[in-house]
């Protein structure tokens, strides 16, 4: 059991970056992100016996992690003030990495205004999934996945523009 647990945790360690990206997509403050991160690891462990190795570990992990994030609700507690992205923050970043960092900050901020299903669509899209793969993971048809992804992207674009960023 301990060996299996260590093997599992080693795999999670390898993929923890993507798990945290999912947590950041679904939760807008650090405490909730950490809670969801732990929740995903817990659900992955509970489901680990069902991982047969037919697919890559990461493929299986994405599905369980996204399903967990979609089924999770925020804790009912007072939220601390969120970090607001303003033009004043731009100077805090270096030219190249700073620009990408700012873009990703704006992107996450816009993502938080999408619903849970739209977030999943955008996540799979960014991870390079085809429409048919996205549909398969969400349990919807390829056409439905295509239409919903397109709408989610349009919505995301509008939100980013409303944040005062050119798109």
């Amino acid at each position, binding site marked *: 059991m301990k060996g299996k647990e260590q093997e599992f*945790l080693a795999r999670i360690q390898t993929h923890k970056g993507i798990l*945290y990206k999912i947590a950041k997509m679904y939760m807008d403050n650090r405490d909730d992100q950490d809670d969801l991160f732990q929740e995903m690891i817990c659900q992955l462990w509970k489901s680990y016996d*069902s991982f047969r190795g037919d697919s890559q570990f990461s493929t299986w992990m994405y599905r369980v992690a996204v399903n967990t994030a979609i089924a999770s609700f925020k804790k009912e507690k007072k939220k601390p003030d969120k970090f607001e992205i303003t033009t004043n923050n731009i100077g805090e970043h270096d030219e190249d990495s700073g620009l990408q960092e700012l873009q990703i900050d704006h992107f996450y901020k816009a993502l938080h205004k999408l619903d849970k299903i739209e977030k999943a669509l955008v996540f799979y899209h960014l991870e390079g999934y085809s429409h048919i793969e996205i549909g398969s993971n969400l349990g919807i048809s390829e056409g439905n996945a295509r239409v919903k992804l397109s709408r989610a992207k349009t919505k995301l674009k509008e939100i980013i523009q409303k944040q005062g960023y050119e798109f």
Partner: protein
Amino acid sequence: MNFNEIQSAWNNDPENGGKVPTTLDQLKPAGLPLDKIKKNLQNEFVYQIVSIILLAFLPQLYRFDPAFYVWYYVSYAMFVSICAYYLIRLLLFYNRIRNYNANTKDSLYETYFDIRLNIEMYKTFSFSLMPFVLIFIAMFVISANKSAMIEMIQTGIFPQAVLIQMAVGFVLSMVIFALATEWWTHTFYGKYAKEIKSLLDKLKEA
């Protein structure tokens, strides 16, 4: 900014957050709706046990007529059996391992129907207790007005006002009990079902 830039920023995002524990015992998960329902049920289990223990002393605490003792404890035994049956069923139900391997739609449907089933089971549980609550109240009322009640039973004359009071009391108790059950299930369980149903609606064909 455009989607290519977002994709590039996403790929290059050096995400370092998230601390993987060294052992799984250190995990503290509690965010999923079924886990929250399970916690609510566990709390209710404790309250039920306390209530059952307190109800065992009700005849002594409220000085019921000793003639009611046998009837009270027969009803009480049935009441305890029903409580035990439903509470064990509800707890076993939520100790099942959830399936998050399936696709999102199937996983959400499974969760949704589990919550709906829990709500219906909970309502059945509550309504099955209603007759016992009425019996206990009736015994309490009769014991509190013993001499007047004996007189009415012996003469066979029940004043109309008393009959109306009993009927109104009976109907009101039923309505309040039913409304309280609806409110309770909606507040503690229904909101989760509603949220998951809205997610399922979003997965419908565009």
